[in-house]
Each structure stands twice: as structure tokens, then as C-alpha cells.
């Protein structure tokens, strides 16, 4: 199997705070990989480093063969990204934003592709509304669309189901599962462990910026263990250590 994402001793320090501490992990092509951890564990910083939004203070990482430090724009041109906080530009309409994304990413036939997504995520009635006037859920749908509309080989998503109602969550989980079946890779960060257990093939647990564990979900379930219980025992042990 091809490795599409690899981090070696990746670290990030903000002043005196060690947000991520020498994390090494790799993700294979076709995986739906979950980066798990409590709030403030460094998940978002990891995603920001892996997508070239933040420079690591130590270590290296390659995404689809591109060094994230040397060519951050190159990384972002190859992947799809949904940041933690949805931020479509205030004064473009949803459709105009997708046209903007298409112009920047040079995506052909944007009208047809966008219409498919508007129908699929059920927000066609909002396509000509300014982004600032959209609800959080609709903005999340829009951000989801911009991340997948060019069908990237790898998508990195920070909290994929946040702001979605249960029906939309189900639809999105189904979409993600189907996406990796096509040979594409998805890297998500979440603290919703039940979702991770349900959809992820591999996972890593991060706590206080340190990697506690990484491996396939099947190894756990094969032993009759559940991800939430495993996660809690590991994090609590580390917390008391």
C-alpha cells in the first residue's frame, strides 16, 4: 500500500506551550483515518501543520509526496480541507464562493458539479444567499462541498460532523465511506469516538500533544474492545501519569 501522509517527529510550540510533541504517524492510501483526542490535545494543530497552514517547529511531514514545509501551497492544491471553523467569505453567495474556489483551483464545469452538491446536501435554496447570512449548518455544507468538489486524493477534515443534524450526519458518513472505497483517503480529527469507531479504518490518539497510540480499528474490535473505552482508559492513565 502507498503511504499518502507521513509525519516524522512533528512538533509545534507556541511560546512556552508544546501543542504537538514529536508525533510520528503514517496513513495509507484508501484509509479513513481518525485523529482522536480530547479538547486541546493538538488535533487541530496537527491538521494545520499537515495542510501547510502552520509551520512545524520540529520534524517533517509529507502529504501526497509533497513536503508541507517546503511547499505548503502545493499541498493545499492537491488535497481538500475543511478547517475547524467554517469560514466562507461573507459577501459572496454560496454559489459564487464555489465559483471562486473553482477559479482558484482551476476546476472545470463548476456549475454542474456545484448543482450536484447543492442537491446532495439539500441546500439548493441557499445557493444565491450571502455566506454571512447562512446558518452554521449550511456553512458547514458549503465548506464540505468546497473540500470535495475537485475530488482530491486526500481530504483532511477537522470535526467533520460538527454543526450537522442527525440526518445530514448519516448522509455524510455514508459519503465518506463511499469515498474511500473509490481508493481515495480521508484524514479526520474528532473527539466523537462513536463516530470514529463506526467509520474509521485506522486511528491515532493524541493527548497533550503526545501520541499515545496508533493502529487499525479492526485490531481493537477484533479483541472485543471498543474505541471509546480504550480511548478513555489510555487518556486517563496518561492524565494521572
Amino acid at each position, binding site marked *: 500500500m502507498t503511504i499518502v501522509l507521513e509525519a516524522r517527529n512533528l512538533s509545534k510550540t507556541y511560546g512556552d506551550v508544546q501543542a504537538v510533541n514529536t508525533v510520528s504517524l503514517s496513513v495509507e492510501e484508501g484509509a479513513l483515518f481518525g485523529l482522536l483526542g480530547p479538547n486541546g490535545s493538538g488535533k487541530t494543530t496537527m491538521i*494545520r501543520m499537515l*495542510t501547510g*497552514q*502552520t*509551520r512545524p517547529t520540529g520534524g517533517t511531514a509529507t502529504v501526497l509526496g509533497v513536503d508541507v514545509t517546503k511547499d*505548503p*501551497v*502545493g499541498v*493545499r*492544491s492537491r488535497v*481538500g*480541507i*475543511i*478547517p475547524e*471553523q467554517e*469560514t*466562507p*467569505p*461573507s*459577501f*459572496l*453567495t454560496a*454559489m*459564487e464562493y464555489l*465559483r*471562486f*474556489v473553482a*477559479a*482558484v*483551483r482551476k476546476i472545470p464545469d463548476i456549475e454542474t458539479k456545484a448543482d450536484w452538491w447543492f442537491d446532495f446536501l439539500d441546500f439548493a435554496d*441557499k445557493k*444565491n*444567499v*450571502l455566506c*454571512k*447570512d447562512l*446558518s452554521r449548518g449550511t456553512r458547514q455544507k458549503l*465548506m464540505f462541498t*468546497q*473540500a470535495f468538489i475537485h475530488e482530491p486524493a486526500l481530504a483532511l477534515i477537522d470535526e467533520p460532523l460538527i454543526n450537522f443534524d442527525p440526518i445530514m450526519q448519516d448522509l455524510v458518513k455514508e459519503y465518506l465511506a463511499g469515498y474511500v472505497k473509490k481508493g481515495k483517503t480521508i484524514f479526520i480529527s474528532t473527539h466523537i469516538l462513536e463516530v470514529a469507531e463506526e467509520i474509521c479504518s485506522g486511528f491515532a490518539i493524541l493527548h497533550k500533544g503526545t501520541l499515545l497510540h496508533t493502529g487499525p480499528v479492526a485490531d481493537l474490535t477484533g479483541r472485543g474492545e471498543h474505541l471509546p473505552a480504550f480511548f478513555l482508559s489510555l487518556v486517563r492513565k496518561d492524565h494521572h501519569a
Partner: protein
Amino acid sequence: MLELFHAMMKEEWRIHSTMFGSLSFALFPVMIFGIAFMGAFLVPLMQTTLPAGNLTLILHASYLMLGIMVGGFGLLGNEVMNRRFGQASLLAYSARSLPLKESFIFSNFVVKDTVYYFFLWVLPFGLGYIIASPFIGVSLASALLLLLTLTLAFLFGLCAVFFLSTVYARSRPALWLILLAVVAGGAGLAVVTGTNPALFFPPLLLNHAFTWTNLIGSCAILAILFGVAIALFNPESVGSEKNYRNAFSPLMARLSFLPNPPLAAKDAIDLYRSGSLIGQTLFSFILPLAVIWFFLSLLGPYFPPHGLLFIFAITTGVIASTMYTWVTMFDNFGPYACLPVAVSTLIAGKLTTFTILQLLPAIFIAVVAILSGEIAFLVPAVVLGLAVSFYAVAVMAWLCGLSPNVLVYDVKVLALYLILVGIVIVLFTAAAFANPYFALASLILAVPAWWFVQKAKVRWDAVDPAGF
């Protein structure tokens, strides 16, 4: 009232201090104090060429403009209103989670801005002058009076903008009517009295001859403007779902000759739909420049021949450079973080939009040159104004990247900006005073401007994009 006011003050302080550290931000008023203190020692020298009355005129005009700019900064443009009262996680947003009326929050916000910027800008400057007054032969009483009247001038600028912006939010024709009435009133006063109406500016009258009646009159005008602004305040309804036709694609096609058509089209839409193109042009460009022209015109006899036009061209250039803040105010790097766009590309895009906006100062300087009968020097004046503007914006881009609105309060950044731009202003003012055509030499500023832009791209690509 007090709790909310206190919390808003703390919030404003923390917004600034967390960005560049409490000490660095706390030094900002100290620097203003230092500038005023040292500048005061130049007063005796200036008085040899400028009568004292005209010096106070310049000071009052500057404070009026400061008030206009502080007031305009937070309140102009629909989206800025919206951001401050709708989506931002500030106390001003608390009407939705606390049992408080929006007009009550707005009045607290206005008072907070007044007090906060008084301590940040007005008081340090006044104190600098007061403490220097014994050394320059100025009595303490007149120094204190100056502090009072400068404060009033600042408040006139601030509350005039609050008033006009709330009128603007309610009815644009009403705004134009009011402005027309003010201009007509000023012209009428000039005709009837045969005096420049600027001399009837209440704080200036008060400074020339203190009377309690004048003081109460000034305060009453301020109270009326504040009161009407608060009464007229009408927060926008957030979440209205108006449909818009596609403006992006045709605009991008029209701007395809530019280096980054999608970025330029987005900026143009931001400026248009936010209402800030008209609002900023009016309140952050034309109004301050009209005020400056109004007051500067009184000083014509004390400048060398044609000097007034070139002083005005340089001032226009400096103010025009702040148009960079118009195109960066709605954007941080956030919306681009998920796209293959580098910070340097974004800076280049913003500078492209800035370049298009420079049509405004060019026209403005040309109109002033024509109206003042200096058409022969129209070209050197326009060249000088634009050269200063492009140079100043290049310095700003190098120092602040995409966050000029925020980093201006970093004392190191502001000091460096003032030095780098100040040197150029002094050099080219002297050149233009020596011979108006020497102003054409300002074209040479294209070289350092280009250098600063290249440096800005490298510098801001190398640091983590700021989230403000």
C-alpha cells in the same frame, strides 16, 4: 451600565494587548506622549513663521480628523456594523444572550470608544504638551484649555461620524441632505461674515476666548449628536436571506487582465456589497481630506508659492495609502487557508485592488489643483500624491502584512512606519517647495516601494498567517 462599560473597556484592551503583548501596547500612549512632548519644543520655532492662532487651528483640525477616523474605523460599512454587533464574539453581541437592549449596548459601545481612545490618543498628546509648557513659555492655564478644546475637537469628529453613520444606515438620501446643508450653511456663513467658516468651529472659538456659554454650547451640540445617533441606531437584522444574482463570474471576466482575477473580483464584491466603498470613500477619505483642505486653506499665505497644493497632495497620498486597510478589513487568512493560496499571493491581490482604488486620490488631487487655480502643477501634484501613497502602502504591507488595522497599534510597527514615511514626506515636501516640478522626482519612490513589497511577500510567507 457600569458593569458592561467596564467589561467592554477590558475587552478592548485585551483585544489589542493579546495581539502584541501588554507592554508593547501599553507603550503606545507613551510614544504619543513622547511625540507631543518633543514636538512642543518646536512650537517657538514654528511661531516665528506661523502665528499662534494658526498653530492651534492645525492642532484642532488634526484632533477633529482623529475623532473622525476613530469613529469611522469601527462603525462604517454595513458589514463592519454587522461584525461588531452580529457575528463577532464581543460583548456588543450580548444582546442575543443577555437581557439587554441593543441601543443600550450601542450607547455603552460609544462611551467605551470615547473613553478608550481618549486615554489612548488624546490625553497622552495633551499631557505631553502640558508638561512641556513651562519650558516653552506657555502658561499652565492655556495648556489646560488646549487639552480641553482638543478633547472637544476629538469628540466632535467622533460623534459627527457616529451621527452620520447612523443616518447613513437609515437613509442615504438623508445623509446627502445633511451634508449638503452643512456645506450650504458654511458657505452662507462665509458670505455673510466674510470669514472662513472654519473659524466658527466651536472648540476653536472656545480656545480663542473661553466662556462658559461657549463650553456649554459645545457640550450641548455633542450631546445632541450622540443622543440622535443612539436614537437612530438600528442594528441590522442578521440572517436575512436575500438572493443575489451572480456578480462574481462577469466581474472576474472583466478583471481578467489583472494578475489574480478571482481575488480581485472577490475584493471588488466585498467593497461593493459591504457598502464600504461608498462609506469609506466618504468618511475615511473625502471627509478627512475636506476638513484638512478647509483648515489648510487658511495657512496658504505662510507656505511658499504653490506649497499648499503639494502639502495637500502629500497628505492625500498618506491618507490614500490607508485604502489598503479597506481591502484587508474583511479578510484574514482564514477563508483562504483551505485553498492553494499563499499569503504573498493574497498581499499581491490586495495591492492590485489598492492600485485600482488609487484612481480616487488621483481624481481628488486633480480636482483640487483645478479648483485652486493651480492647473499648471496638476501633473506633479498627482504624481507626488500617488508616489507617496504607493510608497506608504508598501511600507505598510511590509510591516503589517494582511493585518494593518490591528498591527498599527503595535508601538514598534507604528514607530517604524512613522520614521520610514516621515523621512519621505519631509524630503519631498522640501523638494516641492523648492520647485514644484521637483515633485516629479518622487517617481523614484517606485524603487523602494517595489523593494518593500518583495520583502513583504517573503516576510509574511515565512510566518504563520495571523487569525485577525
